């Protein structure tokens, strides 16, 4: 399992892993448990510009459809076709194989507003989500 210490989290349950000027995005283990078995994933097109907190992808479970928001602004440079083909990867491996897309970040400072894993766990416990 990935080192969650290297991940940054949003209040909308996405995580961001920064590698150079590229940020990989997925959803938290808590989020995948809450939405239950994922049955469909719609990824953004490569080259699309996304704004911080703007809708970038859609994930569907038997319960409902949920939007995945971009944790930072930038251009989509990669999309993980594997989760489109087999959405169950999102449930099985939310922090590793289950990533959704990667963003070429416009402004790395935007990531400063995100939470550490520890803060995110506190945030979930507080029930403020």
């Amino acid at each position, binding site marked *: 399992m990935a080192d969650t210490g290297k991940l940054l989290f949003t209040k909308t349950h996405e995580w961001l892993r920064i590698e150079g000027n590229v940020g990989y995005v997925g959803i938290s283990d808590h989020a995948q448990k809450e939405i239950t*078995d994922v*049955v*469909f994933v719609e990824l953004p097109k490569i080259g699309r510009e996304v704004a911080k907190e703007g809708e970038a992808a859609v994930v*569907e479970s*038997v*319960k*409902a*459809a949920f939007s995945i928001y971009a944790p930072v602004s930038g251009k989509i440079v990669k999309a993980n076709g594997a989760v489109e083909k087999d*959405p*169950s990867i999102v449930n099985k491996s939310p922090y590793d194989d289950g990533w959704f897309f990667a963003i070429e970040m416009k402004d790395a400072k935007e990531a400063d507003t995100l939470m550490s894993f520890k803060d995110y766990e506190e945030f979930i416990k507080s029930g403020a989500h």
Partner: protein
Amino acid sequence: MLKVEKLIFEIGSAGRKGYSLPKLDVPDADMKELIPEDLLRKSEAALPEVSELDCVRHFTRLSQLNYSVDTNFYPLGSCTMKYNPKINEKMASLPQFADLHPYQPESSVQGMLELLYETEQMLCKICGMDAFTLQPAAGAHGELTGMLIVRAYHTSKGNPRKKVIIPDSAHGTNPASAALCGYEVVAVKSDRNGRIDLDALKAVVDGETAVMMLTNPSTLGLFEKNVRQIADIVHKAGALLYLDGANMNALVGIARPGDMGFDICHVNLHKSFSTPHGGGGPGSGPVGVTAALSDYLPVPRVKIKRNRFILDAESKKSVGRVRAFYGNTGVIIKAYCYMKSLGGDGLKDATIEAVLNANYLKARLKGHYALAVDDEPCMHEFVLTGKDKKDFGVKTLDIAKRLLDYGFYAPTIYFPLIVEEAIMIEPTETESKDTLDSFVETMIKVANEARSEPGLLTSAPHSTPVRRLDEVLAARELNLRWKRPGA
């Protein structure tokens, strides 16, 4: 116990027929002489091969598997599954209505046009609106029509604007309708009781806001007390206010959207006005507007000219047709019949009873299930949360499945999205106290089972023709085609 019925293709046997044709009374001919060979089938069509009795039994058994409001209680929140009076069906099937053709000349359909005109008038009175269109064929279609009107209105003022504001508690159709009309959807947060947070609203409304779509009572079943302030904030920015009328069953005869400051609203005849719903549809989602917007309504519109009813398609500002002919007229006849049968006082009484029934259920259930919001009087429906039952390893889905074993249709679950493990219950006014009590006792039984025997819930249902279905597999590997074995 009712069993699963095989497909009609799986019963019968090769060569069995349910008909006998008379002797040929024209010269026989080879099919190849009549139809070019390349257009002829190479193999026999795979039609069912059954006798008349096989066929009658098959469809009778299928009909007995139906669960409907005519057989049992249907507390599906946000759907208003009230009884559909049989007099409605009788009126709609009168040959004078049923045999009409939409291309008949106006002069020969004056009665039908009068009925459409009067239905519009009644809906105007109920909603406090100035004009109505009966064309939209469902609620979401009404929303789309509303958004088209919004766009046409703003475009005529020089700027179609960009944004539609929608609360995070809204029906999913709201953002879908706005997006389909080319608008960007901006979500506005609700407070702890699912009401609009006025400060959050002020922060998102600006000169590019085209309309706000609001459901009142909200999907949490509570009246939006600040609706006038919301209307002021929206109107001050030059934007419009749209009512998603899914919850009109709490308002009819008591409060009018027009008086609350709404500019446009849709109503669901198949919810609030007792016409059949779901598989028994089709639906009908008339849209009402204030006088300032009436020219934008779809055409043709029923009008009176020289004491005759006419279909008028004159308006240059109209968004155009949104449905072939004049909407689902059969449904409109049933709603007209409902409104006329109950009358103004009757409709008001129905609303009061609907609210009373919901509050009765809420009061009796709140000790056994947690309420999703603070304990205040609800409108026609209310929302529970199954989150405390998670401690026993039981989810809301399991509670819903277990209710099926006791012969009840399950409430709406996992909606609204802002409530964890939501259970949304709407009894409607047409249920007796006996039915409500029997539902309460069953819900309590299920709550107790969740604690003492959770396995009963997680493996439910046990007594239905089919057991728990693998919804995940069905969604991931959707297969809608049946193939004859060996084909």
